[in-house]
């Protein structure tokens, strides 16, 4: 199972990185989402993968699974969900005002206000 999870994380990161490097906002947002899924899986596995074990030590169980990474993942999911909503709204309003969804601002480095 470790192999499966690590391959999944790797594929998600690769796809996410590729999409983030695109020039338009929609693929970039998708890429960020993929990366956040990857990191959630990664965080989840950072407490070791254990099957069918209670998250709380009860005395009669032989072992337990670490509950902390699950709490961390929950926090990370909530935050990345909120952030994705923000970036979607922002990208939409940038697109609607500029009629252009390119992620790079043109003539930016040369004191972009010249042609503004």
């Amino acid at each position: 199972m470790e192999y499966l999870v690590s391959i999944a994380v790797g594929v998600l990161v690769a796809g996410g990185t590729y999409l983030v490097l695109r020039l338009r906002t929609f693929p970039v947002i998708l890429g960020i989402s993929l990366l956040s899924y990857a990191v959630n899986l990664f965080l989840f596995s950072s407490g070791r993968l254990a099957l069918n074990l209670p998250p709380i030590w009860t005395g009669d169980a032989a072992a337990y699974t670490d509950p902390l990474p699950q709490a961390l993942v929950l926090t990370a999911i909530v935050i990345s969900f909120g952030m994705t909503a923000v970036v979607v709204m922002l990208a939409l309003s940038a697109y609607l005002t500029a009629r252009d969804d390119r992620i790079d601002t043109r003539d930016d480095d040369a004191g972009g206000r010249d042609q503004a």
Partner: protein
Amino acid sequence: MNHLIAVPLLLPPLVGAIMITSMRHHPGMARIFSVAGVSLLLLINIWLLAQSGSGAIQTYELGAWPAPFGIVLVLDRLAAIMLVLTAVIALAVVLYAIGSGWDHRGRHFHALLQFQVLGLSGAFLTGDLFNLFVFFEVLLIASYGLMIHGGGQKRLQAGVQYVVYNLLGSTLFLFALGTIYAVTGTLNMADLAVRVAEIPADNTALVRIAAVLLLLVFAVKAALVPLHFWLPSTYAEAPGPVAALFAIMTKVGVYAILRVFTLIFAPAAATGDLAQSWLPPLAMATLIIGAIGVLGARSLGRLAALATVGSVGTILIALGVFTPRSTAAALYYMIHSTLACALLFLVVDLVRSRRPDHDDRLVPAPAIMQGGLVSSLFLASAVGMAGLPPLSGFIGKLLILSGVRGTEPGWTVWAIILVTSLVLVVGFARAGSILFWQASGETKSESADTSGLRLTFVAAFGLLGSMVALTLLARPVLAFLTDTAAQVYDPAAYISAVLPQLGEIQQ
């Protein structure tokens, strides 16, 4: 337990929530509340600073859960200094935003500002690495709202870049945290310091990866070359007062580097060589690129943004040496440069608002209203940023030069800091002479709305006054900062304050 430590995390969200729920249609009330809230916060933070001066490290266990199981807030000298600095900048920004009317050009300016202050205070106070991530996100999500405050095409496009860049940074942060937790089984900073020191030197590969990831994340926040690309357009396009508030955001990255790489990955530990070998060369590159950018900038906003990049480089050069003496110098320069950057961005906005046809482009234009006052403020902020006497930047650079003397890259640092100071002087002189001396024709007397102007100058001169105070009180301030650096380089005291039971077990 001293409950006052939790107040910087309770007061801003409380004020912000009241403003959102009951002052949506009472902008005047929101202004009063915002000023009152930030002023009260400043008083409390100064009180906390006075308490931290005793040298004792105070902790506050949230929900009375003992560390390392619960989240702790830790107040030491370093955290207290950063808290006071945050409140000072926030107060100046609130006053300026009210005076210039920026807070009414969009919605919820004051509430967002309160949440930004919450995120900053939390990042400085927390003693838990995951909690640091959460507060980073709080300050970022508030800053996204502030950055696009007022709208406009350029600002929104720059905002998208800023958000995307920082989301990638957050993802890296989570990867680092996952790796650290997998290796050590804890995220409490004091507990981490103990566990990381126990890892045998030949088995540090994973924890070194995590340390490098953390360094990258903090370098993104601090805008260290080559991870600084988000900063120039963001700061140049953000509303003036917001850019002034962002002057402290880069310092969050600097603070996090100092905290994590002196406590957890301490210079003495097996992982300590990472920051020491990476920081100085990158910081020098940052300073050089910032200085060249100032020389080549075609608009005042971009010039100010690149000067900010350069100042971060200067701080991190001194920090990267990792000796108590150079760290005290870096802290002094950090306080100074935060004030100077904030002042510079306020001046940029003063200029912009007075040149409706030319914005902040560095081209000759009709003379501006109140040109004498604005240009003298520009002169003061330029003197501060370039590090010329008589303002505190000169003392700061002097301290840094003397702090790095005798260390590894000593002479290179001297050459780079002195030459870039000259380049900065030339860059600022060029911008100032175009803006103020090549101004032609009659001053357009805009009698439209001068009611709030007094308040904008109160804010700007307040920042200038705090720089003057920092200069005049250099000796006691430096004594305090030397104690701060000594405390930072004594992880044992931090650990025993957060984990008192650990000492009992060992005894």
